[in-house]
């Protein structure tokens, strides 16, 4: 039987994820709309804040809108395409990696693409709307925004894979991985200029939230090749570490006998 060895299977997985999510029409629409509403309410705090203070160390309300747009769309894109990046620790702890290892495809890519989060589609759309509302929708600016979103999504995915891969050594690290995601989102949504010195180092290494929010927005505000270079390099290094950690950890995988259905 003739076989295609390309990455077409990833498209088939995304398609079936969407079909699975749309199987229940009302929850699908409610989750999508609910996440967008949630983001709007969260942003209302910053509207009230900037009503009293015109700027925070050089950041205005428009910059905050761009920040929310990049982070929401970046996180949304990551969770839409690679929704399992936040669930690897759970999958490994339950021994559910077996189903991916028994199939002829790269395990990490197969795991990542096997789930799409519906609420994250709401995040993604929210980010696009917020970008438009922030103004300056020229072709060049939109292209830079798209690049920032893609890089932010790659950083979210890579750092979550890295954090979740700790499960291979710790055996149970689901909560740790959840806290890590929360920390990434929280620190991503603060103006980049608020943090200096050790805090800034922390935000570009241990919890690399600087790469998902502050730096992409700096690139959008004043585009220069050096910022883009740093952003690409940081994302590439994180991705390499994530891949390495998963591959090394995979050798320690011990399977399990829990009964898990495929949703």
């Amino acid at each position, binding site marked *: *039987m003739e076989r295609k060895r390309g990455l077409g299977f990833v498209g088939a997985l995304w398609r079936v994820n969407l079909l*699975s999510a749309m199987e229940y029409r009302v929850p699908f629409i409610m989750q999508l709309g609910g996440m967008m509403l949630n983001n709007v309410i969260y942003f209302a705090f910053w509207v009230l804040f900037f009503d009293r203070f015109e700027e925070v160390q050089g950041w205005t309300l428009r910059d905050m809108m761009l920040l929310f747009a990049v982070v929401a769309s970046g996180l949304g894109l990551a969770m839409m395409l690679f929704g399992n990046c936040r669930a690897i620790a759970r999958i490994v702890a339950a021994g559910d990696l077996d189903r991916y*290892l028994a199939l*002829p495809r790269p395990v990490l890519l197969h795991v990542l693409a096997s789930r799409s989060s519906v609420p994250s589609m709401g995040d993604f759309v929210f980010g696009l709307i917020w970008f438009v509302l922030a103004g300056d929708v020229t072709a060049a600016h939109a292209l830079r925004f798209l690049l920032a979103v893609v890089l932010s999504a790659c950083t979210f995915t890579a750092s979550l894979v890295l954090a979740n891969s700790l499960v291979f050594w710790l055996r149970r690290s689901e909560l740790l991985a959840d806290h890590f995601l929360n920390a990434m989102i929280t620190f991503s949504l603060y103006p980049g200029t608020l943090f200096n010195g050790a805090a800034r180092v922390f935000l570009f290494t241990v919890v690399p939230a600087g790469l998902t929010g502050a730096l992409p927005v700096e690139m959008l505000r004043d585009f220069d090749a050096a910022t883009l270079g740093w952003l690409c390099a940081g994302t590439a290094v994180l991705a390499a570490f994530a891949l390495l950690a998963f591959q090394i950890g995979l050798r320690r995988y011990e*399977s399990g006998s829990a009964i898990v*259905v*495929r949703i």
Partner: protein
Amino acid sequence: MPAPISRRKGEEQVVSIRVHQLTKSFRTRSKQEGLTGSWRALWKPEWRQVPAIRDISFLMERGEALGFIGPNGAGKSTTIKILCGILHPDAGTAEVLGHVPWQDRQQLCYEIGSVFGQRPQLWYHLPPVDSFHVYGAIYGLDRDATRRRVDFLVDVFELQHLLHTPVRKLSLGQRMRCEVAVSLLHAPKLLLLDEPSIGLDIVAKQRIRDTIRYMRDEEGVGVLLTSHDAGDIEALCNRVIVISDGQLIFDDTMDELKRRHLTAKQVNVRYLEEGERSLPMAGVETVAAGRYGMQIRFDPRTVGVDAVISGLHGLGSMVDITISDPDLEDIIGTIYAENALDPDAA
């Protein structure tokens, strides 16, 4: 590492699985019972190595149907997971269709199909037809090839009325038929089945066995089947491996298994008149007795069949009598007993 397995000329063409001294253990934390035990284990954990399989060696020929039987925790699933490339062994060597599973997993997976009874492959909220098309893409088949193969499998497995029903609405038996069908989508040379009939009723089990037997006979698919249900093995396999406590304790044909361990005959007899009866003959054991009949067991090597029948005839007017071999379950129980193993130990 142990020495590589020696091969005879032309062996690659006939051998599908070659396993030599395969060993695997798991590191497990041991803990005393209760809160105190948990508190102590939190600060001073104690670890121990639990052997899952020990020095297992066997060969399986291409197209052969091999049964792997043993109680829970015997090491059946661990062995099959190593052979699929899911787990790495601690020691020993293995080749499946010429591939070392844990080194050449992806290539091997194109040539084998696997079903894990406890780990469904189908998307729960979608009809099986959607899962079939995803697996077609995963195995690199184009849409036409997938459609042709799905049509064929739908006919063989009689899935016409199940194909467009969400999996969550299928019965366990129907779902398992779809699971086995999807594992055959890419026309594998070898099918590895880990407890495919777990939780199924007798009718559903029989349908699964029939379809697997059909694919084995029609497409020449080799079958390695693990089960703790002796009926699966008896229905599908011509050779059986018995494993217990991680060790291989029997490896031969079904006929040889019966010849060596089928040492008893079972007789069920029913009488016309009511009464209390017993057959006090040396070598005859009464298994059950009722008002109108009884069940006895005897070893035909020590007591003649005609003597037993005469004895039973002397107890009254018989209306029915059947003489049968014990179930495979009983034979397996005998093997465990001979090896001083507890079949319930898991």
